[in-house]
């Protein structure tokens, strides 16, 4: 019989098993990091420290309120010592830990697991979280002795990689954690038994039996049960079909929902709203910062929507690795860099358009992809051919336009086909008016374009949910006007609006659809996912060719191309005609290649923005689901009470037997003994001891019951009546009042009578012995 302080070996054993179990579960985190020793070894030491400290303190009989803080202090000192090099929480150390943690957070948010040595290590994050879990499990399993509840943090540890990575936690971690948890459960149950009564081994007074828990456990069958259950847990899931419903949109990127792009202009919104961020294609490249990956170009504005228009794809325009025609309008003196890209597309990305970076100089694919020389996008020549599972490579150049706009000259008519400058009839007049207002004071097409982009980014709000449907017609006016629904939209609307407005200003424009920023998943490997889908306008300038602009506000597209950052002096364009026109001082102190969007400088914020952007689409759903679950829980919690109340009202209004049954049920609810097989009078004698008064009501009730049961058949004694109801109510109230508050609450919210009848209660009630 153990009470109070545990014996030291026992306490130590329990604490070490708890720590080992947690560590086994933490083993599943090895998928996050290359080189698992980085976090596991410190955590093992930390676990031993926590276990030993806890065991000693508990053995010393210290209260729980002391044990936990001391353990936390020891763990914190160790973690501090490991990360910062010194266990003392000095300011410098704390700053160092803060740095290490924020670096780890950045890595975790930026890179795909496993995170290699090239990025800041995530080990500090894993160590801190792991130490927290070690403390929590020790608290629950050893200090509070609630072993089953300790299963929850273990589950949490285990489900983190299940939720975040494709591979999920390994079987090894599961096996270790399962065995450890079973040992903890058994030790807990065994302690309960030993506390319950005097233990008797197989032979009298054999110290061996009491001191050897292993032999004891084996004899008790713990091994058989545990092994059978664990083996089943390893085997059965293989046969359990797992749906990929993604009810909450929370799954990892391993789902199989297909992304189909047949008509780029109509599919994007759906793909963006789909919620789940799914990896669609990976590129391997020598480009340090690959960005906008173009899928298709929309040339033709019908007034209602942008379409890809016609494509001229003859059989000699195949993507077979032959040099492509030089990019249209790009002057030869623009400095440029050339990069190679290898792309592999996931099976779930079905597009009739082949994603490439513009301007490409060479595209090599084994399938029949053909390009249009004007738009330079690649379309499938075969109806059955999509990008799903496609592997191809291409070479693309990145022109360096500088930041002064030196290469941008106004286009002259005839440079581009008229479809790229045409505007449909019936375009609202406000469109042209807004375009003029926005570019007021600009002296060149380049300045107009820059000002237009700025106008969008400064005055509009990005939101996929609140965006009006469509891109043309009336929506267009709504989108541009100020108002409750105005000036809110998503990338496609920004792109199409800017393109249309550019055309009203005489600048050839088209809309490109593709991917924005990829996520870096490894050295030289980047992944584009569903949430990276994007649309942007391309404007044509003499000497610069088709140039990308970014009107979508910073909520979505954080940065703009560096060549659009020129400061436009719009105060008095006429005063200094000789000064360099679009001049301009360098904005931005970006250390990057001039034409590189400055996104890579700050991956954390970029990804955070992206998350915020994509999060908005799912947050409402999640909120709704959470709200619904809470509502469901509340209803479930209140249901027994309501059902019981209905039953009570019905029974009390019924015949004497019903009232009697209600009294029995109330007794069951309140855990008042209700002897079975006795006469009503005897039952009443027992019951009256548990009632607060109202003995006379009970006696009347008993009399009615006796009349009902024993009167001659046919006599009208079993009718419901008002007095009967009042007596029944009085008895029920008296019983309830006399109960302890805790019992009363339980009886009200979780009435036992709903699932247990009075006959089964307290069969073991000892007969009163007359003395």
């Amino acid at each position, binding site marked *: 019989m153990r009470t109070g302080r545990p014996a030291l070996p026992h306490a130590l054993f329990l604490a070490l098993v708890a720590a080992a179990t947690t560590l086994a579960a933490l083993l599943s985190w090895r998928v996050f990091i290359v080189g698992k020793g980085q976090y596991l070894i410190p955590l093992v030491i930390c676990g031993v420290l926590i276990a030993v400290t806890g065991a000693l303190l508990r053995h010393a009989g210290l209260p729980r309120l002391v044990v936990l803080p001391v353990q936390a202090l020891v763990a914190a000192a160790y973690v501090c010592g490991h990360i910062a090099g010194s266990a003392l929480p000095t300011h410098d150390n704390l700053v160092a830990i803060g740095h290490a943690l924020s670096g780890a957070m950045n890595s975790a948010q930026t890179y795909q697991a496993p995170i290699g040595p090239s990025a800041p290590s995530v080990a500090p994050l894993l160590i801190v979280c792991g130490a927290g879990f070690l403390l929590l499990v020790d608290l629950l399993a050893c200090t509070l002795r609630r072993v*089953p509840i300790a*299963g929850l943090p273990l*589950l949490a540890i*285990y*489900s983190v*990689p*299940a939720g975040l990575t494709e591979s*999920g*936690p390994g*079987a090894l971690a*599961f096996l270790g954690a399962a065995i450890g948890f*079973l040992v903890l*459960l*058994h030790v*807990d*149950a065994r302690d309960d*038994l*030993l506390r*319950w*009564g*005097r*233990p*008797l*081994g*197989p032979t009298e007074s054999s110290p061996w*039996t009491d001191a050897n828990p292993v032999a*004891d*456990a084996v*004899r*008790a*069958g*713990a091994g*058989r*049960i545990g092994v*059978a*259950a*664990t083996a*089943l*847990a*390893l085997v*059965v*899931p293989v046969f*359990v079909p*797992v*749906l*990929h*419903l*993604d*009810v*909450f949109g*929370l*799954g990892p990127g*391993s*789902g199989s929902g297909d992304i189909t792009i047949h008509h780029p202009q109509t599919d994007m919104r759906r793909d963006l709203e789909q919620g789940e961020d799914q990896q669609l294609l990976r590129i391997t490249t020598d480009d340090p910062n690959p960005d906008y990956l173009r899928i298709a170009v929309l040339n033709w504005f019908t007034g209602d929507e942008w379409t890809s228009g016609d494509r001229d794809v003859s059989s000699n325009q195949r993507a077979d690795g032959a040099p492509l025609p030089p990019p249209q309008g790009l002057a030869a003196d623009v400095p440029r860099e050339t990069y190679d890209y290898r792309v592999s597309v996931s099976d779930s990305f079905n597009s009739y358009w082949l994603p490439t970076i513009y301007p490409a100089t060479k595209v090599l694919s084994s399938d029949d992809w053909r390009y249009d020389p004007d738009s330079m996008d690649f379309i499938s020549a075969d109806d059955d051919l999509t990008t799903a599972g496609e592997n191809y490579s291409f070479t693309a150049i990145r022109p360096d336009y500088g930041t002064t706009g030196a290469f941008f000259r106004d286009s002259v008519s005839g440079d581009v086909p008229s479809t790229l400058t045409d505007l449909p009839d019936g375009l609202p007049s406000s469109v042209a008016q807004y375009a003029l207002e926005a570019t007021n004071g600009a002296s060149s097409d380049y300045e107009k374009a820059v000002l237009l982009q700025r106008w969008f980014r400064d005055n509009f709000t990005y939101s996929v949910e609140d965006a009006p449907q469509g891109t043309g017609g009336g929506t267009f006016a709504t989108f541009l006007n100020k108002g409750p629904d105005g000036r809110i939209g998503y990338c496609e609307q920004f792109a199409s609006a800017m393109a249309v407005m550019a055309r009203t200003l005489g600048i050839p424009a088209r809309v490109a659809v593709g991917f924005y920023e990829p996520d870096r998943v490894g050295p030289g490997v980047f992944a584009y996912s569903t949430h990276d889908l994007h649309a942007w306008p391309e404007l044509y300038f003499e000497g610069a060719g088709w140039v990308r602009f970014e009107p979508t506000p910073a909520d979505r597209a954080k940065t703009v191309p560096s060549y659009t950052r020129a400061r436009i002096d719009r105060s008095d364009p006429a005063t200094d005609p000789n000064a360099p026109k679009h001049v301009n001082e360098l904005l931005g102190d970006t250390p990057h290649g001039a034409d590189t969007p400055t996104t890579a400088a700050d991956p954390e914020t970029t990804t955070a923005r992206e998350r915020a952007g994509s999060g908005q689409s799912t947050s409402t759903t999640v909120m709704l689901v959470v709200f619904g679950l809470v509502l469901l829980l509340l209803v479930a919690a209140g249901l027994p009470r309501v059902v019981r109340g209905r039953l009570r009202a019905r029974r009390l209004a019924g015949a004497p037997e019903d009232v009697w049954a209600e009294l029995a049920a109330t007794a069951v609810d309140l855990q008042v003994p209700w002897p079975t097989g006795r006469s009503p009078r005897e039952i009443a004698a027992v019951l009256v001891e548990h009632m607060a008064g109202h003995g006379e009501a009970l006696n009347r009730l008993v009399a009615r019951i006796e009349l009902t049961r024993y009167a001659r058949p046919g006599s009208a004694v079993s009718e419901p009546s008002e007095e009967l109801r009042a007596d029944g109510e009085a008895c029920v109230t008296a019983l309830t009042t006399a109960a302890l508050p805790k019992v009363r609450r339980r009886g009200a919210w979780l009435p036992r009578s709903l699932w247990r009848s009075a006959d089964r209660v307290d*069969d*073991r009630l*000892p007969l009163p*012995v*007359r*003395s």
Partner: protein
Amino acid sequence: MPEPVTTTSQLHSVGGVRDALRGLTLRGRAFVAAGVTAILCAILLGQSALTRVGVLVLVLPLVAALVIGRGRTQITVSRSVAPRLVTAGQPARVDLTIVNDGRRPTGALLAEDLVPYALGTRSRFVLRGLSRHWERKVSYQVRSDVRGAFEIGPLALRVADPFGLVELRRTFPGTSNLVVTPRTVALPRIPLGGGWSGTGEHRPQAFAAGSAEDVSVREYRRGDELRRVHWRSSARVGELMVRREEQPWEARATVLLDDRLRVHRGQGLASSFEAAVSVAASILTHLELAGYSVRLVTSAGSPPDDTDNAVAELERLALITPTQRPLLDVGWCGEQARGGLVVAVLGSTEPTDVPALRRIRHDASSALAIVIDVEQWTTRTPAADLPAAAAAVSLLGWRAVPVGPRDRLDRAWQDLGRAAERAAAGKAAIR
């Protein structure tokens, strides 16, 4: 002492998978619920890793139930209580023999003998490491401070799995009885008077002290029939001697306990009635040790199967409860009891009791009374002088002493002895 009574009951098979499933504990049920939830979530969310956890948590209680249910045991329990009759405050030992003839059970067997609260805490045993043909004897002590007959048992047996997920309950029907007699006080020897002889020697002689021929005559007393005169002895002794036809050497004593509710005060263990029972038991034991053949008489008279067995009388005292009778029944003091010693344990006396008490005094050779001063059980203040009841009894020719809740019985008994001496001295003086 009577032989310990052994109760044996057999239980076929603790086990059965269906029973085991029904016997899932709260923890077991919670595990099943958690497992089902986890599996459903895993299926809906497409997390096969979570399925593993769900299956483990779901399967664990089920496997435990299966294993526990398969391990059918065949258990026989026998219980003996020794001694079967104890004085309050004295321990008795309960021996349990638990035999398993069935399969090797899995898990631990928890045995709990259901003992009335008055006998102390429940006796609980955890039997581990059972095997086939396993037999264990366990014993524990019970002790009660209140008199009464107690039922020990039935034995509740639980089979628990090693993870605390399943628990099977069975109750063995057999019970054993333990009679706890009232607490007694050792009393000093005092001259009691009465008995059969009128000489100064009051101690009854044991029957075995001489031969029956030697002692089967006694001196003639008034009222003896002439045909019973033993002429030869009369000639030898010089006085008229008569043959004894009753059992002459068996000194008879009667203890009268007034068990009417109306003459007692207080309730339950703190009542004057309990004190009276304890006094009666002490006197009964004392007289038995002194060689008397004692019988217990209550307000209802003596029971029909009067055995004159002190143990049986103590057992009656263990179970006695106050009655509602209005009057003392004196039917027992007939011819048979004439000349015996009567010790009465009385409560308050009422005028209606006077004839009965007078009749008893008349028939008894010596009448002693311990008068329980019942008013002290309600007022808490001792009466200054001899209480009215004791005085009234004394007036009827009884030798009486009062006893209050704080008085010692042995002192009172001694006082009674002194009163007897005084009475004897007075008698001698008159003679």
